[in-house]
């Protein structure tokens, strides 16, 4: 297993409150890593440290290293560059309502200013196809991104992140706001994505973690309690907390 992300002694704070405590983990390349744990345990904070989004929150502080292919994203790398390499999909679909469906997909590429109009439109189509949205929206490409259904919006946001051709894609409970059918589509998509990229996905649903992930990280009160292959975590967890959590005996 090739390591994509090497997280070393990662600590994160909101003002005085420490949200992550000494997290050390090696995320493998081209696999799906699920992040699970009770509410408030630091899952979102953890992935937001990986694309330097954590520091945008007032009072936020980070220490430690996050090596992306060996290079520390908190070192000399430009945060904008980090975010282009490490894409993100949020809990609530957040397409840009002031842009059309097609423009939403290439919103990040447009910022680069290196693509021609024709190329952008082709990339937009291609990424809509790869998230399985093309057939549903091909007649509505000019409509606002906010005019789609919730599930479609979330796939649009995935297409938007994928269009950047990211090396890692972070997903914060991407299906928690969606109906079962849309959730199934997202899960299919996640499984497919690992052929191209490294996926880290937060989920509150342990069955979902079991279904779609190769590796699972269990967090509790800001600490990484256990990190292992998903099969091991679910069949023979080493830590009692992990076992209690996956068997649903606490939050």
């Amino acid at each position, binding site marked *: 297993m090739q390591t994509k992300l090497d997280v070393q002694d990662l600590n994160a704070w909101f003002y005085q409150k420490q949200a992550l405590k000494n997290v050390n983990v090696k995320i493998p390349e081209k696999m799906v890593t699920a992040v699970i744990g009770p509410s408030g345990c630091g899952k979102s904070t953890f992935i937001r440290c990986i694309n330097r989004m954590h520091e945008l929150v007032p009072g936020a502080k980070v220490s430690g290293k996050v090596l992306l292919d060996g290079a520390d994203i908190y070192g000399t790398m430009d945060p904008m560059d980090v975010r282009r390499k490490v*894409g993100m999909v949020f809990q609530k679909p957040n397409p840009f309502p002031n842009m059309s469906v097609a423009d939403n997909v290439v*919103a*990040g590429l447009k910022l680069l200013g290196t693509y021609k109009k024709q190329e952008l439109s082709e990339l937009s189509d291609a990424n809509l196809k790869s998230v399985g949205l093309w057939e549903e929206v091909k007649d509505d490409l000019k409509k606002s991104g906010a005019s789609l259904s919730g599930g479609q919006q979330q796939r649009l946001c995935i297409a938007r992140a994928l269009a950047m051709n990211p090396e890692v894609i972070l997903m914060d409970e991407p299906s928690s706001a969606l109906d079962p059918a849309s959730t199934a589509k997202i899960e299919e998509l996640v499984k497919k994505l690992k052929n191209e990229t490294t996926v880290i996905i937060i989920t509150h649903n342990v069955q979902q973690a079991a279904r779609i992930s190769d590796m699972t990280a269990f967090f509790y009160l800001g600490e990484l309690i256990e990190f292992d292959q998903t099969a091991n975590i679910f069949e023979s967890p080493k830590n009692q907390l992990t076992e209690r959590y996956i068997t649903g005996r606490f939050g």
Partner: protein
Amino acid sequence: MKARKSHFFKLQDSLFKYFLIACSLIVVGLFVAIFLMLFETSLPSIYQNGWSFLTGLVWDPNNNIFGALPAIAGTLISAAVATLVAIPLSIGIAIFFTEYAPARSKLVLSLFIDLLAAIPSVIYGIWGLWIIAPLIKTNVEQPIIGAIGFIPLFSGPAYGLSIFLAIVILTIMVIPIITAITIELLSKTPVPLKEGMISLGATKSETIRHLGLPFARLGIVAAVILGLGRALGETMAVTMVIGNSYYWPFSGYSIFAPATTITSKIAGAVGEAGGLEFSALLEMALILMVISLAVNFISRSLIKRTSKRGFG
């Protein structure tokens, strides 16, 4: 008990409704009354001067010749230019404030902006007259006239009190209005969308350009109209700094020449005016009212048209 209570509330409800209706009627009634008063008092001037009131350049009470065009032009030009100049400055300040100013300085900054908006206009007038006018005369007007005075727009002599100074003062008065509203609007950019933009590698300024400003656009249009309204109707400060010379821009195009506006002409002349001149001054006021209403109407239809697309 219960029935009585609800009956009581019903009575209170309908009383409140009548109270509101009465209030709205008073507002409408006041507006109509003012309009009719202006119109009625203007009638002698309207009869006497006819359309030449709108095109005439001469204001000569001794010979009963009244043309309002220089004042109308002065009003429109000074207000429009001041507002146009204020737009980029205000938006720039607002962007700096929301995205770049250190959190601790924000409170002081916003206090200052609010204070600037609340300063009585006579104070702007005194400040413009005593401090800015001499400063501008020696440091702006004279050097520019010296360098490019051959261009009619910048030709001399430098008076200090001028349409240019009036525009500068009006710009300073309008900026806090547009800035305060724009700050309010920019700070309301939905955080999830902002984060979405930033997660794609957008810089702060790209996030503002592609998200903050498009979201605020409608509100900024409204703020600009509000500012324009203030500039159109501003009297005291303009009267004090514009130099009150009646023929600009028909006496020459220089922005450094003294000029007049509807409000400053009325303020300056209404005290001693009698007979037809008084009526003519009120006709000018009527024209100002029509201009303000038109600005209001245009802005409303503009806002309606842009908001039809479902998004500002």
